[in-house]
């Protein structure tokens, strides 16, 4: 990937030594983003137009918002794989119930309830019962899938989407997509939380060495709960936005959001072993993943081959970053 931009790579080499390894990884993730974007433009001039870019930014917002919780989770050495069906369940339930009660705020209440409940359930399994988060959160994902299937067997999904959800996904504020504004706001908050809040310090402490964190008085249970609840809330919120975006809520709408957010975190330079990384890199990661998907679609690659190529590229990126991490 970097070979696409040899000038940057070569010019950066002597400079790189001045930065900490962590900064280097973040820089690298932006170099990769640039390289992917250059590739996109090479494939199609459309990527220079605002209408195409606008589409990509909205897509990146969905992944980026999920990536917030995933970055927290990976930083404390865990992972959250319950995202896809949290998205779907929140979208289906939120839109149906708000149509039923005739008030769009019901949808937001559902988002908070589902996100919070999923987060607490994950905390129960991962922190209290000490099941490996990979297993537990994936199982919770299955559980949510079951709940969604049972619900939709009884009640058909509605196409009556809350106006606010449509506005968040499709609206604009003086030309800037509303979705992007939302992402920018939460990104800033996340970066602030990780660098300047007590919560952020606790997260790095736990990810670095949980025993030491315990002995330093870090409230492990509370931090785990907050991380998983935030991750659940992010996914549930994205569910509502997605229903506004496609003007419907349907089963399986979250299925494409299992691995891309994790790929975004890894490309963003956060180490999967925890304790090292941050959200600034994850932003580049989310954009990279979206551009990569868009490029493969533009190239008219068939669905199957697209997945193969996407998977292969993610694997090599993951390899690149994990190797650098050691």
């Amino acid at each position, binding site marked *: 990937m970097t070979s696409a931009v040899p000038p940057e790579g070569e010019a950066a080499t002597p400079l790189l030594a001045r930065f900490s390894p962590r900064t280097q990884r973040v820089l690298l993730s932006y170099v990769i983003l640039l390289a992917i974007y250059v590739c996109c433009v090479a494939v199609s001039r459309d990527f220079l137009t605002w209408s195409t870019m606008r589409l990509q930014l909205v897509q990146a917002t969905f992944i980026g918002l999920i990536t917030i919780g995933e970055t927290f989770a990976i930083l404390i050495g865990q992972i959250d794989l319950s995202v896809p069906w949290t998205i779907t369940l929140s979208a289906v339930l939120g839109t149906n119930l708000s149509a039923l009660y005739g008030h769009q705020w019901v949808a937001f209440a559902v988002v908070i309830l589902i996100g919070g409940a999923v987060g607490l359930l994950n905390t129960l399994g991962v922190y209290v019962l*000490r099941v490996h988060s990979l297993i537990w959160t994936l199982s919770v994902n299955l559980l949510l899938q079951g709940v969604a299937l049972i619900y939709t067997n009884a009640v058909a999904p509605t196409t009556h989407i809350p106006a606010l959800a449509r506005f968040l996904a499709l609206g604009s504020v003086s030309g800037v997509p509303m979705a992007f504004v939302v992402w920018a706001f939460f990104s800033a908050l996340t970066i*602030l939380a990780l660098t*300047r*809040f*007590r919560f952020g*310090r606790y997260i*790095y*402490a736990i990810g*670095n*060495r*949980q*025993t*030491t*964190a*315990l*002995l*330093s*008085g*870090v*409230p*492990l249970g509370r931090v785990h709960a907050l991380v998983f609840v935030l991750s659940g809330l992010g996914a549930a919120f994205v569910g509502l936005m997605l229903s506004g975006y496609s003007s419907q809520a349907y089963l399986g709408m979250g299925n494409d959001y299992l691995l891309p957010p994790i790929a975004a975190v890894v490309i963003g330079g956060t180490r999967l072993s925890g*304790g*090292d990384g941050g959200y600034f890199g994850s932003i580049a990661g989310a954009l990279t993943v979206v551009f990569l998907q868009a490029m493969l679609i533009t190239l008219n690659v068939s669905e199957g081959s697209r997945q193969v190529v996407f998977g292969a590229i993610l694997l090599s990126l993951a390899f690149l970053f994990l190797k650098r991490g050691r």
Partner: protein
Amino acid sequence: MADEEAHSATAAKPLLAAVGLTKRFGGVTALRGVDLSLFPGEVHALLGANGAGKSTLVKILAGVEQPDAGEVRIAGGSTYFATPHAALAAGLATVHQELSLFPSLSVAENILIGREPRRLGLWIDRRTMRRRGAELLKSLGAADIDLDTPVGELPLAQAQLVEIAKALSAEPLVLILDEPTSALSIAEVERLIAVTERLRAQGRAIIFISHRLGEIERIADRVSILRSGEKVGKFEPGAFRRDRALQLMLGENWQEARPPERCVQERQAAPSILTVENLTLPRHFSAVSLDLAPGEVLGLAGLEGQGQKEVLFALFGLFRRGLEGKIEIAGRRLHPRSPHQAIAAGLAFIPDDRKSLGGFLGLSVTQNIVIAALDLVRSGPLLSPVAESALVEELIHRLDIRCASADVPLGSLSGGNQQKVVVAKWLTRRAPVYIFCDPTRGVDAGARAGLFAVIRELAAAGSGVLFYSTDISEFPALCDRVLVFREGRIVGTLAGAAVTEPTILDLFFREPGPGAPVGARHKKEWGDQPGSGAEHVEHHE
């Protein structure tokens, strides 16, 4: 050694002879030119303080570690053992302190594990296996142990006999028993001694390691004494003398141990800053009562594993369940269920192993120091970088921490400086009670002196300090009072000038009288210890 040659000339040839064993770990010489010879039908005791090199010697003999110089001769051949398997094949079996049994497998399965009799080389011959297991247990006089019981359900003493039977299944010529009695009650120790005598009568050679001089007096034929990695003396059969042995273990001038130079602080009428009454944690310690005055340094001494460390862990909230008794800090009751709570109540805890417990090696010096004081450097919801760096710079200066900047990762600092950072973390808040849990392990002499100065400063500023160390010599140098632990109980209190190495050691080793209560520790099963703090800590790893 000349007298050993004399011995070999008059009696049988040695079964095993270690010659000039030397082992270094990094810059530390753990073992320096140690000789040892073992004859058939003898019990050879190894004696030495913690860190004297006993475990290193045993590990080399067992093939776990390889010596940097020297060799082990067994049955005339000259070799050292590259792997534990090679040692076993050459006829040397070790029963380690930590049992290596599978709790869910039966006694018979455990005894013959890896050596199961087979039919046609395929499936396990259970009948032969049971017969062999029964024979081995019988040879130990332990025929009462049921062959089909899962080992996890046996009491510790019986599990230990199973472990010995397992070692004997390889028909070893030499058997090493590494502190086999440290966890046993008095009656159980009797049985183990009887077993050892039986093994000796069978013509095997036994290396017996124990801290209990009384046992060694009873069972050992010859005794070798290690100090600081060197063999400093030995006793021929019948020549063992307790006081001389202690002298050899501690160095020639131990009797001159000076009375503490600092004046013993008058215990003021001021109320205790920490009061503990009848603190009990089943299997770890029982009925521990202590009180700590402001400005006092109180030592908790004892051999490793006597419950003193667990008391400190319990105070800091690392045992969630099973803790009974009363803890008061500055007059307020504390039910410590987490370090978070304990810190809020006014405790600070400096742990023993800086790599695994004390610091975040991947985080910056600043992040390490302020982690326990984030509430002190906040302005509103945000952490203030200005307040942070002011706090950190002051501490770096005060403790003379050598680092390129406060932003470099802790892992890039030297060991002593890392330990200083861990201490600095707790100086950010003026805790009423400081717990130092073996803080000097792996720290050089200079850093240790600095640490002691810090501890005295803390005490002078009115904090109470609880101090535990595996190095006995640190208690007289630092403590106003010392409580000595054995088997989970306080067996003695020393104060002021009475705090000396010999007086502490005397309390360590004094045999409990016949009426003395048996320690609560290990009374039940050795297998699982639900809710124990140690487990808690390990789990978080």
